[in-house]
């Protein structure tokens, strides 16, 4: 009950937010929040640390951008194309990566992501260093013009909510139960007859698909798909967002993403612009040393302590 009320309040806030804050900033927050939530599905609930998640964000962005520019598709079809591509890459990369565990899993994902990075750098259709520019936002279902930032905001909010609810349901599903069991004790899950690699692959593909959704939407928001999206910096940033907010919590990645994106936006125009990465590094170190459960994780701990 308490949660339902809270969710309604949050939804209300999200609906009036663009009248208070700059819509493009909010859309950026939502895209990264979805990206971090997708990443958290894998790290926080399946216990798999991927160090190459940017590749799914980036391929979603590039493919959506490409089909929008070249074929002039409607945005929902453009997003669909990007998401399908991310899912396919997720399937191939996942098949290779889930054969390894722990640090080796992380290294395999990083290596595969680097491979994709150089592919996007060299391919003619991506525009190389310049990226894909001037991606049209188009008319949603051929009806609603998304050029206006306010309209676009509500579209992005809807996409975010769909993605977020998908993740929520996945975590609280029969599949989610098995996924958590594997995270908690993999040999035991095997001894109960679960073919853990298949479950890990499923989690990987779901995570990649939703990361692709975030990337495709982001490409429409900024009308740009660039190498930043596939760079390993991006893979690192999503780890930071998730850990800062609290991995394995539903809202943690959202809070983490909002914090990091706000920091970047505020600092970029201030006197500390050149020190953004230093400051983020400091934040990361403080987070890992002082509150390992992340902002939301620590908050939950306090609430639990008070209620018991």
């Amino acid at each position, binding site marked *: 009950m308490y949660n339902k009320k809270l969710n309604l309040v949050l939804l209300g806030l999200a609906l009036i937010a663009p009248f208070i804050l700059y819509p493009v900033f909010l859309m950026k927050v939502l895209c990264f929040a979805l990206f971090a939530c997708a990443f958290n599905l894998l790290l926080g609930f399946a216990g798999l640390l991927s160090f190459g998640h940017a590749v799914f964000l980036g391929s979603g962005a590039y493919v959506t951008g490409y089909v929008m520019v070249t074929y002039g598709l409607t945005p929902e079809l453009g997003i669909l194309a990007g998401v399908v591509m991310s899912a396919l890459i997720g399937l191939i990369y996942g098949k290779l990566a889930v054969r390894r565990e722990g640090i080796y899993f992380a290294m395999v994902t990083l290596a595969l992501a680097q491979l994709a990075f150089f592919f996007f750098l060299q391919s003619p259709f991506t525009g190389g260093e310049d990226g894909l520019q001037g991606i049209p936002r188009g008319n949603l279902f051929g009806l609603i013009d998304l050029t206006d930032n306010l309209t676009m905001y509500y579209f992005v909010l809807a996409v975010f909510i769909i993605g977020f609810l998908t993740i929520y*349901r*996945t975590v*609280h*599903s*029969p*599949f*989610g*139960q*098995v996924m*958590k*069991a594997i995270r*908690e*004790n993999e*040999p*035991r*899950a*095997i*001894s*109960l*007859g*679960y*073919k*853990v690699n*298949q*479950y890990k692959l*499923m989690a990987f593909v*779901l995570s990649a698909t939703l990361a692709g959704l975030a990337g495709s939407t982001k490409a429409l928001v900024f009308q740009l798909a660039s190498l930043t999206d596939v760079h390993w910096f991006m893979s690192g940033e999503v780890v930071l967002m998730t850990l800062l907010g609290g991995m394995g919590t539903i809202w943690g990645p959202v809070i983490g993403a909002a914090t990091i994106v706000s920091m970047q936006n505020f600092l970029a125009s201030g006197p500390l612009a050149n020190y953004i990465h230093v400051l983020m590094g400091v934040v990361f170190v403080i987070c890992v040393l002082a509150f390992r459960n992340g902002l939301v994780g620590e908050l939950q701990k306090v609430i639990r302590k008070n209620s018991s």
Partner: protein
Amino acid sequence: MNQDLIIETRGLVKEFKGFTAVDDVNLKIERGTIHALIGPNGAGKTTVFNLLTKFLTPTRGKLLYNGQDITGKDSASIALMGVVRSFQISAVFPHLTVLENVRVALQQKRNDGFAFWRSEKILDELNDRALDLLDSVGLREFSKALAVDLPYGRKRSLEIATTLALDPELLLLDEPTQGMGHEDISVVAELIKEVGKNRTILMVEHNLNVVSDLSDTITVLQRGAILTEGNYETVSADPRVREAYMGVQEDEQEGEGASGHIPVVEDTI
């Protein structure tokens, strides 16, 4: 003739880089018995377990389960066929509730493990069965607690309840009483006896009181090979066992002082 053998190994060998951990083991487990695997540390007991459940792949030899060759199967498939193991250190899912621990095992048979679009509420219909299982190991009142918060002995009970949820034909218990106090040991021993009434159990166990009390057949391993086999009287009368097992047993206790069980060796063998 194979009908009454639930599991059989033929010439089972496991080598690790020049070291033979398991050397030509021909193990025959009869259906419906409680079979104990004993031997000094490093004798290869846990390795045999790992081979039987394919957590390790044998270098040579065959595994037969109900007369069927299972050497090429993977661990999960073997578990699905009815051979379920426990682990030396307690194997629970720490941050799931006690109820969820058991339910994950029950869920295995439902074939909806990949249903990520359905609500976990559909699993609630397993709760009654899960609570019954928890009842049978005396954990019902803890069903909502996180497994990580249970004391050690209860974790082992939870592990047994989880294993039973799969209704296995053959239970492999790896040192079920390890690290337990006296009271916990008798509780778990009772539990094993109860469970063993309608299924086969193979256990690795250090506590000789438990072994003598529960097992129908005992196999003694030494340096990876079977030293002798038989019921408790036969095995304990064997001079080689007295020499090999007990000689090392005393050394072992000095090294393992903290493990908690110091059986009076003269009394038990």
